[in-house]
């Protein structure tokens, strides 16, 4: 479904992603893990079109997406829940959800999808008229995920969804991601929370200093000596 073909990404003259290649197949949960500064978020930003690769190609659903206008990606079924949530804080919860469904099919089915999102997160239904900036961190993350779901994505990408959340909320967020996958959405997740993400991932890639260092199934990597030592603190 998503193929990253040997991309190089630069910030100005500084290269941060080197020859990265991986793929996400339909129906999978794939995790991209690694330490702070390894280039995970940069890779995700490149997939979502905020950054452009200098070399290489990104193919989603048969389309080379690094060639099309990036704001059109969401219509093609590729959505991102950005790092730090990036909600529209001075808009209500409901308006934030509306923002996820501006185009095409998603716009037509807006009210129906919204009900589905509210079934998923009953707490958001109670707070639908509240300003997003007044919500707690966990609730804000729910709005961010809900906003992503509103676009009826084929592939939903998460950038550090557990960042800054209390442990109990982290577990809740990962449960939600698992549920989203069960509903048939493919998931690509970028995380520093290695243990949680490896335990829900079918496959995972470990990034180190801008390169893919290791890959395997979630279970394999959980038992890998290097991963254990470097990321799980065992």
């Amino acid at each position, binding site marked *: 479904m998503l193929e990253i073909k040997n991309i190089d990404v630069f910030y100005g003259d500084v290269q941060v992603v080197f020859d990265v290649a991986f793929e996400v197949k339909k129906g999978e949960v794939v995790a991209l893990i690694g330490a702070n500064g390894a280039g995970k978020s940069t890779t995700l930003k490149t997939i*979502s079109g*905020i950054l452009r690769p200098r070399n290489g190609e990104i193919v989603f659903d048969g389309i080379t997406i690094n060639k099309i*206008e*990036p*704001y*059109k*990606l*969401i*219509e093609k079924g590729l*959505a*991102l829940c*950005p790092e730090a949530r*990036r*909600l*529209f*804080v*001075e*808009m209500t919860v409901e*308006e934030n959800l*509306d*923002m*996820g469904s*501006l*185009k095409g099919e998603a*716009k037509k089915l807006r009210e129906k999808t919204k009900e589905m999102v509210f079934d998923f997160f009953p707490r958001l239904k109670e707070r639908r008229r509240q*300003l997003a*900036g*007044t919500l707690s961190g966990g609730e804000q993350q729910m709005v961010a995920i809900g*906003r992503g779901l509103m*676009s009826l994505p084929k592939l939903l990408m998460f950038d550090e969804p557990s960042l800054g959340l209390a442990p109990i909320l982290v577990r809740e967020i990962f449960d939600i991601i698992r549920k989203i996958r069960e509903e048939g959405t493919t998931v690509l997740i970028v995380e520093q929370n290695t243990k949680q993400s490896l335990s829900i991932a079918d496959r995972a890639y470990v990034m180190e200093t801008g390169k893919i260092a290791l890959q395997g199934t979630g279970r394999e990597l959980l038992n890998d000596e290097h991963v254990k030592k470097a990321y799980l603190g065992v």
Partner: protein
Amino acid sequence: MTSVQIEVFLQTLIAGLLLGGLYALIGLGMTLIMGVMKIINLAHGELMMVGMYIAYWMFVLFNIDPYLSVFIATPALFFLGIAIQKFLVNPVLKVESILPENQVILTVGIGMVLANLATVFFKSDYRSTPVAYATNAFYLSDFWETSPIELSLSVPWTVSFVFAVVITITLWFFLAKTDTGKSIRATAQDLEAAFLMGVNVKLMRVITFGIGAGLVGAAGCLFLPIYYLFPSLGGQFTLIAFVITILGGLGSTIGAIIGGLVLGVFESMTATYIGMGWAPVGRFVIFVVCLIFLPGGVASLLKRKKFGK
């Protein structure tokens, strides 16, 4: 207070609110552009001047009432704004330069060009539209014969104010209820997130500049029956819009409305109690006081209430 003093005070307050309504409309255009583009449009007053000339020539050539010209000047200025953003501001946005505020300087240049073109084509004469109702007024005693005090309401001022209110409500409806309006607000709040949601940010910039210009063009038509017109009047209104934008809190629409009303009342009060010529001084006193004691403007007060911070 004697009844005469009360009369003067109320009359001043009314005049201030009527002026403030028009000011709010001017400020709204600038604050919208500020919110989305993060730049101050220093050609704002000049765009208003263009709107006023359109209304003026419509009146002189075709005898179209300035109030009807709102429906001509607003779309004309909307398209002028779009053209400015698309062909002048956007290319400058792309250029990497030493000065990050290149676009602001560009708007100064646009303002100068507009003002000087107007001087070339229309001469620097002061002009006004001699509308039939220019000096008509409503009197309180017409409605309430035994009223202890007498107040008057100038017809053109009142009509202009009502127009300004209707336009403001329409704008609110557009921003709050339509997808395009929501996209504009989203772009102002978090450009990158809006972009990720599939908002065509470039298009939103263009539309916003168009709307901002259209609003100030409408304000120009509303000012024409109660003011006079000359090519270099823009600078003064750019400053007024700037003060309102600061007073309201950069980029806040509600802030701009409140800021416009506050400024209108304040100027009107200075004019009555200190002297006609002191109104601009009052404007800058309130500007400086706001910068020192309330740097976030009215919006920061509203935010504190909404978010409990």
